[in-house]
């Protein structure tokens, strides 16, 4: 019996290792070719190079000199900052709303809050596109006003991503809010603090780890989003769209691998920050 369990455990571990190889394989493949001194992201291996990061001339244009990729990176960054700021703000309001307030049909509204997460991203994208265009066309036809901001572009991308990322931030911050002991606020009131002061010195500091974690998650999800963005994008294409356009073309150079590796490292570092913030939560 013991032997049997041991064999079973060895098999189990082997399965676990195979699974992690499966998880790592595509990431490894994507990052490995960033250093291959070849025009194509494919075998054979032609030696190590950093050209795909730092070379400044065609045809081996490195990512830090590729204007279109850099512009994509910049737009992605701007969009992600707006989305995470907005969604953390609304998420915090929602935490106060659903944990600290009582109002009719609260359960129904709570379900409404979760719904955006189970709507496919493509549908969110087209529905917002349809509404914005309808309004813009209506204004144009009836009053002759051109509402350029409702045409596909940065604003619509931000709104589209915000529409479902807010659910994520709300859930994260609400979970933290539920652990808050109201006695702490009452103590502050008893000591003579004003409402605003209690909010700023007691409640918000308590929520801060969750707000930071939610903000980082929102930033990453926004940065990586493709489905919703695809329909709302205008001339300011974020990085995922720029990369997709190149990937769909055959014969893309390994500069895409360099970008992939760069993104992996950057998001890995951000993820690490989230973990550290969360750890702070358990001790604090």
């Amino acid at each position, binding site marked *: 019996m013991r032997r049997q369990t041991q064999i079973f455990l060895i098999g*189990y571990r082997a399965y676990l290792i195979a699974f992690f190889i499966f998880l790592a394989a595509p990431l490894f493949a994507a990052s490995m070719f960033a250093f291959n001194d070849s025009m194509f992201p494919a*075998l054979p291996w032609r030696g190590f190079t950093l050209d795909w990061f730092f070379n400044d001339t065609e045809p081996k244009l490195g990512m830090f000199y590729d204007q279109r990729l850099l512009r994509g990176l910049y737009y992605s960054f701007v969009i992600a900052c707006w989305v995470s700021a907005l969604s953390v703000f609304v998420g915090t309001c929602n935490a106060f709303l659903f944990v600290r307030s009582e109002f009719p049909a609260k359960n129904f509204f709570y379900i409404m809050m979760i719904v955006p997460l189970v709507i496919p991203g493509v549908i969110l994208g087209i529905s917002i596109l349809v509404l914005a265009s309808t309004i813009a066309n209506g204004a144009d036809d009836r009053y002759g006003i051109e509402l350029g901001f409702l045409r596909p572009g940065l604003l619509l991308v931000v709104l589209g991503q915000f529409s479902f990322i807010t659910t994520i931030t709300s859930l994260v911050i609400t979970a933290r809010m539920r652990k808050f002991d109201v006695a702490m606020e009452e103590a502050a009131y008893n000591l003579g603090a004003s409402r605003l002061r209690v909010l700023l010195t007691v409640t918000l500091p308590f929520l801060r780890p969750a707000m930071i974690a939610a903000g980082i998650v929102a930033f990453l999800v926004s940065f*990586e989003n493709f489905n919703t963005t695809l329909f709302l994008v205008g001339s300011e294409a974020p990085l995922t769209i720029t990369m997709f356009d190149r990937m769909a073309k055959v014969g893309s150079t390994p500069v895409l691998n360099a970008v992939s590796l760069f993104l992996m490292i950057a998001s890995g570092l951000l993820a690490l920050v989230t973990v550290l913030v969360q750890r702070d939560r358990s001790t604090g």
Partner: protein
Amino acid sequence: MNRRDARRLALILLFMPFALWIALLILLPHIGMGVLSLREKVGPRQYEFGFGNYIDFAQEPIYWNTLLRTGSMSLLVTALALIIGFPIAYYIAKIAGRRSRGALFLLCLVPLWVSDLIRAYGWILLLRETGIISGALQYVGLVSQPVEMLYNDAAVIVGLVYTVMLFMIVPLTSTLDGMDDAMIEAGYNLGGNGFTVLRRIIIPYAMPGIVSGCIIVFMLTAGSYLTPVLLGGKNSSWFTETIYEQFITRYNWEAGAAFGFLLLAFTSLVVWLGLRLSGQSLTSTVARS
């Protein structure tokens, strides 16, 4: 202004962001899409109210075949993700030591921090004719010439399972984590073998996690666009591609909106059925992950 009025005002102010968000970005757009999908084009800039777009869908086998194909392949991906992911989640939650548990869990999460696009790109590099697997097979001598493993259903399924795996493992692990080991021991003490314990104790306990994982995975798969397009090539015929084609290539927004609604209705139906059959609710499943 007395205290009650002040409270009321505070509640309304707090309610505003939520209401604006849900009304302007979720409800109104979907109503707009519904209205648009019920509009038939009868001439240039002339429209009529009717169900023409939905009738077109029903009469064109390509369209509903694509939807059915998307649905069945998504179910397959969900089942595969559950079967592959469950032992991993169980290991992390129950077998791994205290210290390795967190590390393993983080390892599982690593691909989550990389965008879909890069994951699909990685699979392209592995699977294509000049890719790593083909190269390795030639090197070992199993095949004599490059093999193309991209642009077929198997590649799409592998890519999708990979992409959604984490959304299965996270809820499973967190549910199993809350399970008392004594329950498993009791099952063995009462004479159950490994299989009975799994079937009668572990799986029923993990049910909320299983349901929530399956729902998220199914929604993500059915709504995915990137992985089928990149790994399946032109002929992957995923329903989101059909929607994209109607919207962007043909500029037929009315039909695109109708298709979007059909996809939404289809996925909602599957999710509803899943919740119904397992006796769970949306709040108890999705919110916990």
